[in-house]
Structure formats: C-alpha cells, structure tokens
C-alpha cells in the first residue's frame, strides 16, 4: 500500500511531540489489528489505547483496534522474568504491517519496555 501523504494534523503533531514518539497516519477506512507474539511471559503484558486496556495477557494475541477519526494514543508495557523471553508487537493497518517493537533476551535487550505511538485517523 502506498504511503499516504501526511495531512496537516499529522504533521503538526509530529512537530509537537518529543523525539522517540512516532506518529502513524491511519486511513479511516482501514482495518487496524494489534498483533502480539510473546515467549515465556510470567508477567501479563498490556496493550492500551487512549487509557483503556485493549489486551492484557501472557500469551500470543491478536485484537482489532476500532478507531474513530482523530488522534489516538496506543501504549504498551512488557516486563520479563523468565529465561528465553521475547516479545514482538505489530500493527496491521489494512495490508500494511508495521513492527512497533521487537525485543528479546537473545538480543540482550532490556527486560522491560514501555512505549507509545500516536495514531492519527484521517
């Protein structure tokens, strides 16, 4: 899918936010799925949208993310205490797949992470 040109709201938000927080433009007609693949979780991870829990689980999950037109915040938090841990958070927007975060013990990544992205539905 060709990348849509950023509209004014997306550009303004990008300029306003600190570095490290991504802004993703989402077509209003697109189906959005949150896909989580994990290994050896003993602490439930959480995926949240606009302050509400979308997924809280210890296993692989895939959930639709219903979004109205406007700006939304998608957040996540993972914490690991078991050997061999791994997590991968992917956002599927229509036919486009975007990996938001992929970390593992094998890559010697930090054992916990908290992230946020902005989703601008136009």
């Amino acid at each position, binding site marked *: 899918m060709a990348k849509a040109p950023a509209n004014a709201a997306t550009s303004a938000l990008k300029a306003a936010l600190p570095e490290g927080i991504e802004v993703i433009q989402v077509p209003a007609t697109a189906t959005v799925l949150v896909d989580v693949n994990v290994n050896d979780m003993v602490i439930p991870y959480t995926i949240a949208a606009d302050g509400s829990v979308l997924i809280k689980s210890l296993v692989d999950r895939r959930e639709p993310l*219903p979004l109205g037109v406007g700006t939304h915040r998608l957040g996540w938090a993972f914490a690991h205490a078991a050997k061999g841990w791994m997590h991968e958070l992917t956002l599927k927007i229509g036919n486009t797949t975007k990996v938001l975060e992929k970390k593992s013990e094998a890559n010697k990544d930090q054992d916990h992470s908290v992230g946020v992205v902005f989703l601008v539905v136009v």
Partner: protein
Amino acid sequence: MTTTPNRLLRIALLVTAGSFASASVNAQIPPISPVTRDAALAAVQSQFAGQLASATTAAAKQAVYRQMFEALIRNESLYPKLTPQQLRQILVNDSSAVTQSIVDVGRNLRESAIAPSTNAPMSNPATTQLVERSASTELLALAADLKQLFSADGSAITLNLNALGLFRGSQTKEVIAGAQYLYFQREQLRRLTGSVTFGAKIPEKEITGITTIPDPDKLLDAFAWDVKFRAYGDRDPRASNWHELFIDRLGTVTELAATVPTHPTVPLSDTGFARTAASEVLGDELRAAANRVSNSLLVSVKFSGQHLTKESGRNKYLAGMMVDKGFADVDFTANATFSAADAPAMDATDPFRTRDWQLAAALTGSILKDALVKGRAAELSTSLSGIIPMDDDGIPVDRKRIVKVNTTLTLPFMDKAKIPLSFTYSNDPNNLKKEKYVTGQIGVSYDFGAIWNAFK
C-alpha cells in the same frame, strides 16, 4: 526532551479543533481483567498538580511524573489481590485465548539463584563439591563428570532424573499455553527428583571414612543413587508461589505503565514524560521482584545409597537435608547428612558399620556481572565441610574429624559454558587426592574443558 510554548500551542489547537478522539475502545473483554484506575489516577494528578505546574524544565517535569507514578502504584486499592484459585483460573482463561504457539519455557534470575544441582555432591563420592543445592535439574539432564575436577579417576557419570519427565509426552501437546499454565499442570511432580551415578571408581576411604585400613586408596567400582524431595519453596518464576507477585502485583504495574501515558487526562505534550516515568518505575519493581524470588527459602530432603558393584555386602546409606536462602546478592546453602557405611573386616575383627554426621555450609554469590561475558556473571563460592564420626566402642579404628574449606570461582565462557577454578584446604591431606594439584594441605582443581566444548 524539550517543551516549547510553540509546541504546546500547536497541541492545544489540535485538541480544541476536535482532533482528539473519544477514549472509548470497544475491544473484547480481556481474560485478565484490567484494574479500575481512573479515580486513583485522578487523585494522584490532583495531588501533584501544583508541582507539575511549577516544573519549568523538562528534568523537573520528568521528576514529578516519576513521583506521580510511584504514588499511583503505592495505592493498594489498585491491586486485585486475587485468591490462588482465581489466579489459576486467569491462567487457564488466558491460555485459551492464545492465537499462536509459544516454545520452550525457561527461567530468568541470577545464575546462582536457581540453586540447581547436577552432580549430586551429597551422595556422589566422586565429586569435589562440598555442598549440594536444594533445587534440581529440569526433566532429564546428563552431567558427565569426565574431568579430573569431579572424579577420583575421571569416569563418573551422573544421570539426573525428574519425575516430571515421565509425563513430558503429554505435556508437549499443550505448548500453545502460557508458561505458568504449563508449569502448574505438573507442579507437585517437579518437587521429586533423583539421580543415578555410575562408573565411579572411588577410594575405599571415601565410603568408610577410614584412612588407616590396609589399602585406603584402593579404587573400587561404585554405583550410587539418590531421591530428592523439595519440601519447601520454589525459585522458578513460573511456580504458583509467585502468581500473586507476577500476575497480580507486577501485572497491575505493567498495566498502569501502558495505560497512564495514553490516558486522556495526561496532556499529549506530557506523553514522553509519563512513558519514561512508567518505564523507570516498572524496571525498579521488576528488579525488586526478581530479588524476592532469588532470595526465597528452599528446603529439600534427600535419601541415597552407594553400593560397591564388585564387593558384596558393602553399602553406604545416607539421609540429608539441604537449605538454601538468599541474602541480597549472596546465596547461603547448608547441608546436614547422616550416613552409615559397611566397612570390611580388618585384622582380628568382623565387618563393622561406621556412622558419620557431615555438616557443610556455603556462600555463593554472583560477581563481575557483564565483565567477562555480557549478560552473565562469575560465581564465587566459599564452603566449609566437617565430618564427625559417631563411632561406638565396637569400631576397631580411631577416626578423626575431617575439616575441608573450599573456594570455587566459576567463570562464564561464551553464552552457556562455565570454567570452574577450585582451591581446597583440609586438615587431612589424604582427602585432597581428588584435586588436580596438591601441595601440603591445599589442593587446586580446574576444568578448561568447557572452552573446547564451546567450540565443538
């Protein structure tokens, strides 16, 4: 991170223009219920509103957000405090919602905290280790004592068995479920382990404790077995002991770390501050939880037998107890064993039976974290062992008390290999013959075999 008036103005324009959508997300109900946090969050925001307003720099604002998040997780009303049955039901429900498979299960604590035992030191006469840890290897493991460090003549092999292994076949059908769910399916079986040591050639004196018999260093073929039962505690983070800590407590902190930075009451411009604060506090809570697991008490009991395979009526039986307890970054291990061994007939005597108490204690700690291998630490262990003969008047020889002090430094090598270096002192030099190098009352052992094995 900077916050400029221009940036705030642009965000304000976005919000007032109606760009910010409703907070409602019509997702299906998650199997693990979220906490109710809005009121608690509002209270914290109200409490810190003044400080936040007066924070003029990014660093000051970041500090206030951290205090706010710490205050939020101190609110005990946020934690569900579920019963063990409810926590188990959560795991069952959650595992049924899985969309893909997961693979191996493992553990993550400091390397010395798991308290594993692979060479059955308490009952294996061929090992130079003085104490045995309470926990056991998982499933089926083979610890080949092919090096001089562990064997009088370099041939003993210990086969470690776990009762769980008998049921492994059925368990592999459930690999799509969560790690804790799989663990509690056979949790009680994990308490029972055993080992079989064969191929050991051990000196006569190792069995009887008598160094004055005609040929105390004569090597005899021996077969040893043991059964170990973990009576108290479990340092595996998947164990049900830790469901409350990991699912209830840390699960709630993790949820707050994900929801608060995205909450509509947190200004868009402060999202970065809230995220960083949540990450820092979550990391602190995770470290505290790992220390709690690492330092928990473990108690095991063990029964074992040693049998000379080419000499009839020559057996040794042992009963012992092992205790492990962590303090900060150090593990304390204590063993107490009582043994009875058949001794051969000596000049003008019939065969007789010796009885001993053996007491051992060790401190094991992880040092040089990340210094030699990233993500791994060296293990330093100091142990003290004493053998106290409990002979009656019928024993025709005078056996003395034996004391040993051992220090072992185990260096990490590559991802999994270990290189042990060991120094041992004994008041009886006859007890140092298992060491690689002996001078006076001090023995030195080392094993560089791991280096070559790592490259194979």
